[in-house]
């Protein structure tokens, strides 16, 4: 990417073979997860063009290694907050592809009953506390979740922590700075992760950020920052694990920046015309999925046949998810007010458009 600020990028120890020492089944699992995200996002894009999915739809294409690496560092008992580019995170958190796709379709079997859609995936049992559609909106709540953890338990290797994911553009919003400051002064167990794909929609990081090496932006709050190669699943996992460990044991927040590429436009409807043909070709050459496949085949972890078998399996999984979503009914009209309030109170509005303010005969 031309003009992109390049600082030191932390790579896994054995740069020549970053997968060395990793159990093959772990690497194969990472590949399977990356392939699942790729297939899910590709099909989601298709379903959008078929108008099965409405609204905005942002894909993790190109970020598969980052997503899988980050989620591999997180324990099931940790809490995750993300932005609206959240499908891959949801899948890696263990949310079933069918209900995730059904949520994108706006159906009753969606993870939130079709109320949130693509940008707002949520699963309280898996401690996926939300995709958030407002840039920066997830940061203060994630910070507050970390505050709650300090009130509910002691620091230590078994303590829970919070991961809060965001895009590069988010580091310019006030909520980023207020949140990091609170995390620093209150010693909160939280790791903020900036997915730097070089672009906020079409605005480059250099155009938008006074300090374009974003991992350095925690220095105002004495929050240690690190940059990792977002195309290297192991490097991402290791960097995130170390920061999470500090968060658990020392209650020290961290700021991790991962460098990756966005293979498509900002959202499904963005053709990314602001990129030249050469740039697009260059981005394709940095696609993490084929690179990881080649790496594993080169290391003898996978052969082409096994890789193909995984690809076919995730294709079936996602095809099933699409079928599940398509078969799921739309929410019934009488469900409109089902979640108006958690605590019911008198006079909660139930009027439909055009209804009188009081029922006919209220004064009988």
């Amino acid at each position, binding site marked *: 990417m031309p003009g992109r600020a390049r600082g030191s990028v932390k790579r896994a120890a054995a740069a020549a073979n970053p997968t060395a020492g990793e159990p093959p089944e772990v690497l194969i699992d990472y590949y399977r997860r990356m392939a699942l995200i790729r297939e899910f996002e590709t099909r989601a894009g298709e379903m959008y063009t078929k108008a099965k999915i409405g609204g905005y739809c942002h894909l993790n294409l190109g970020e598969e290694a980052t997503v899988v690496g980050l989620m591999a560092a997180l324990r099931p008992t940790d*809490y995750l*907050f993300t932005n609206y580019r959240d499908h891959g995170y949801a899948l890696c958190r263990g949310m079933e592809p069918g209900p995730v796709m059904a949520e994108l379709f706006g159906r009753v079997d*969606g*993870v*939130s*009953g*079709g*109320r*949130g859609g693509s940008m*707002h995936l*949520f*699963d*309280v049992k898996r401690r996926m*506390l*939300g995709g*958030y559609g*407002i840039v*920066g*909106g997830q*940061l*203060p*709540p*994630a*910070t*507050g*979740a*970390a*505050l*709650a*953890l*300090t*009130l*509910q338990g002691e620091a230590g290797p078994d303590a829970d922590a919070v991961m809060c994911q965001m895009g590069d553009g988010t580091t310019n919003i*006030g*909520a980023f700075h*207020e*949140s990091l*400051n*609170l995390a620093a*002064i*209150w010693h909160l167990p939280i790791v903020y992760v900036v997915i730097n794909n070089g672009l906020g929609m079409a605005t480059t990081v250099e155009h938008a950020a006074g300090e374009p090496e974003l991992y350095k932006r925690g220095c105002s709050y004495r929050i240690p920052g690190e940059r990792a190669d977002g195309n290297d699943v192991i490097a991402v996992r290791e960097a995130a694990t170390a920061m999470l460990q500090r968060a658990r044991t020392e209650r020290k927040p961290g700021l991790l920046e991962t460098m990756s590429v966005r293979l498509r436009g900002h959202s499904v409807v963005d053709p990314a015309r602001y990129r030249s043909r050469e740039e697009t070709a260059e981005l394709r050459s940095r696609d993490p999925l084929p690179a990881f496949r080649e790496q594993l085949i080169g290391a003898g972890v996978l052969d082409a046949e096994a890789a193909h078998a995984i690809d076919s399996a995730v294709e079936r999984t996602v095809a099933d998810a699409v079928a599940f979503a398509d078969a799921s009914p739309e929410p019934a009209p009488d469900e409109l007010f*089902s*979640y*108006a*309030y*958690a*605590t019911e*109170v*008198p*006079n*909660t*509005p139930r009027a439909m458009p055009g209804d*009188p*303010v*009081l029922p006919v005969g*209220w*004064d009988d």
Partner: protein
Amino acid sequence: MAEITYRQALHDALREEMTLDPSVILLGEEIGIFEGSYKITAGLLAEFGPERVRDTPIAEEGFVGAAVGAAMLGMRPVVEIMTINFSLLAIDQIVNHAAKIYGMFGGQTAVPMVIRTPGGGGQQLAATHSQNLEVWYAHVPGLKVVAPATPRDAKAMLTAAIRDDDPVIVLENLALYNTKGEVPDGEQVATIGRAQVIKPGTDITVVGYSRSAVIALDVAARFESEGVSVEVVDLASLRPLDRETICRSVSKTGRAVVLEDDWLTYGIGAEVAASIAEGAFDYLDAPVRRVAAAEIPLPYAKSLERIALPDADVLVRVINEVLDATRFTRGESR
């Protein structure tokens, strides 16, 4: 039954709920060492410690949002925003997050948090520190907004707000903090979502909330001696809004005036008047009148501030206009 101030009532509610429930925590600027800009939290830091009474930096979006997240993990944060004017710095967290999270995620997590904040002008604090922005929040589904008028209600409503599983904005009022009233001994929990007839009457309905309900009560007493029976409806809850209690009152009196501290256009009174027009049209003998603040950024100068804000004298005048327009003969209550 003890006579205490509105300020003390709020303090007592906080203290009692913190004593009962360890998940209740306080967050806000200057609420600990300084004991609150308006001293509502006096003594609570000493009693409950800095983990539960947490002084925050000046970062409304940050600490209001932090309360949202803490609430999602089962805490019951009570946030003090020094005045409602500063709540605008947190409006994304209030409107886009606190109000949305329960419904948007299909009821998977509640957000049991309270935002306490005083509104009100009349203290010569000039335009940026004198606003009544309650309608901004009362407009938003997912929030609950209560506006107590008396010490008794302040305590009962704050208690209800803390126990409620939804985000509740408790609108306090600078002009009411020092007012006194009887507060029953023992636990009192208000019902959010209900208006109350705080003085029955037969000739005209005055609708108010917070400070304006107190003024209405005073004006009603004045009219009583002139043979005019004023019924005062205290909205108490701005969201949900209890339209039936309002319309029931108007169905009895046939006349209505709304007294509100906010601006006229699109204000609380606009909603009340529209509700009466639609719900109780057949009972009305005259158009609903609204007495609201002049629509101007409130000037500092006392002479201008005084005339820009609604007060008892203006309410008296407008009540008389409505009575005269309907040829009401004083002393002949229906």
